[in-house]
């Protein structure tokens, strides 16, 4: 596939009628799956992280986490823009999309408790480590428009990982805070294990050279990184194979109740105002 719009139509069910696009080639479906996984993760992760704006423990931590949330929204926009080049609209990608069509990992959709700063730290650590591996595996993708953008996203991930690690280090040095980190690991690790679960078109993604590394290899590398790191901070990480996994796996479009609530909340105004199209402000103010 050369990146031309070749009509990916295993589109998420859109509530609004749209002109039919040509029947897709497998490469288009595979590219769509790859991009939606990237975009959905970033969008939903950012949507949750912005909940900490104004509520973070200090002004400095507020600014730092807001930076990360904005980077992730920016990455989501990169990937959704590419999907728009494939023929989707922003409404179809986000606003009018059936919540049961989203493919983000359940890790990023979970609601935060008011005191859940430890959750935010562990979640960003687990997520950003996976994100880095995932982007690195796309550096030499055969999909040229994607290759152009991976570098930008990757450049920002270093900061995200450093941010998460420095928070782990600080919180782990305090008994009470470490207990909270442990609780977050217990809650989040079972969800994080589905980060690398394959989707329906995984074989085509590989066959087309969109991603060189296999999900199984990436998952193994992710475990080799996060398990020793967390253990190094005195945290107990369960044996992956022994973990009781949540029913919802995210990648297969099954989600927790938290997702339904979140999706209903962030689409409410869009449904109500019913503008012709979502405002685009590139170069103006966004």
């Amino acid at each position: 596939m050369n990146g031309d719009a070749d009509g990916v139509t295993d589109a998420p069910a859109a509530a609004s009628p749209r002109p039919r696009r040509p029947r897709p080639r497998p490469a288009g479906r595979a590219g769509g799956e790859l991009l939606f996984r990237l975009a959905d993760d970033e969008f939903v992760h950012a949507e949750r992280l912005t909940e900490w704006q104004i509520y973070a423990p200090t002004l400095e931590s507020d600014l730092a986490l807001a930076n990360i949330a904005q980077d992730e929204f920016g990455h989501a926009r990169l990937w959704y823009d590419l999907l728009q080049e494939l023929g989707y609209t922003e409404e179809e990608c986000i606003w009018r999309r059936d919540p049961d069509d989203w493919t983000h990992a359940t890790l990023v959709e979970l609601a935060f408790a008011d005191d859940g700063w430890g959750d935010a730290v562990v979640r960003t650590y687990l997520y950003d480590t996976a994100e880095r591996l995932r982007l690195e595996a796309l550096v030499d993708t055969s999909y040229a428009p994607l290759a152009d953008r991976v570098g930008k996203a990757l450049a920002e991930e270093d900061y995200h990982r450093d941010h998460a690690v420095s928070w782990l280090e600080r919180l782990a040095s305090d008994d009470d805070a470490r207990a909270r980190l442990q609780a977050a690991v217990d809650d989040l690790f079972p969800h994080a294990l589905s980060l690398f679960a394959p989707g329906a078109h995984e074989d085509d993604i590989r066959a087309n050279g969109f991603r060189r590394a296999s999900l199984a290899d990436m998952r193994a590398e992710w475990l080799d990184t996060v398990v020793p790191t967390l253990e190094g901070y005195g945290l107990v990480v369960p044996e992956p194979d022994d973990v009781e996994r949540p029913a919802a796996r995210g990648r297969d479009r099954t989600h927790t109740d938290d997702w339904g609530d979140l999706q209903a909340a962030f689409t409410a105004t869009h449904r109500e105002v019913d503008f012709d199209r979502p405002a685009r402000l590139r170069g103006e103010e966004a």
Partner: protein
Amino acid sequence: MDIETVKERAGPRQFGPNDDMPEEYRKAATRMIQFHANSEVMGGYLDKEFTRHAPSLDRKLANTAKVQDEIGHAQLLYRAAETLGVKTRDEMLDELQNGEGKFLNCFHYPVDSWYEAPMIDFFVDGGAMRRQATLKSTSWTPYAHAMDKVCFEEGFHVKHGESILRELMRGSKATQERTQETFEEWWPRILQFFGPTNDQSTHNDFAMDVGLKTVTNDELRNSFLNMYVPKAEKYGLEIPESPRIFERDDGTMAVRESDLDWDEFWTIAKNDSDGSHEQIGSRARRQEAVAWVRDSLDNWEGSAAGTPQAAD
């Protein structure tokens, strides 16, 4: 320096941390800057609601950036306030959390809809712009420096708010009507943003005399009305009949202040309206929920491993 000397020398960016300022000046400047910093924080409690509501990805990004700017402004302003040596930032944040800290009247009203976004981001921020532009000439130099950066960013916020208003007023009839209703609810609060007429303002005379303020409340409201009434009308909003707006002999605009509810304004000024309790309660609850993080940071910084730079 005694007060008389301060009054004689008062002018734009006349005084700074190297000057030996009288306590009365330092306290008045602290009160003013702390109020401003608190308002940036508490404005964020409204604006953050709009991030979740934003009906496009670009709007969502613009909104999170705005909320982040507000925290950045608060950080700058608390630092400028600290240069007066009256209160530390922690003391000011504690006061905000326990209900002693004062902030703008408009931020005592909780919000829950996107229609309110332009009321805050266009009209309230537009009013704030009028005030902040004049504060670039305040006599306390660190405050004036903070205003340089704040005013630059506020310009983007007001454009963001204006763009939201324009879009809503080009929407369906129902959307336009909801926006008009919301405007009517907010309009009196926005007019009260500038405070009461000059002679009723407790701290006004002294602040003017020592150059902390350079323009009166009345002049600010007048300048706001001259600029924003035509803008509101341009986008199709109707200015409510009450409070009455009239044109003075010199062609400038003013509001019949007797048409505004000053009991409500003064209740808010005492942090005692229902909205005050809700907003300050939210601040207190959310800050309390993550007190454990601040405690662990204190432990970390007190330990051998911690370095002050690590505290972000």
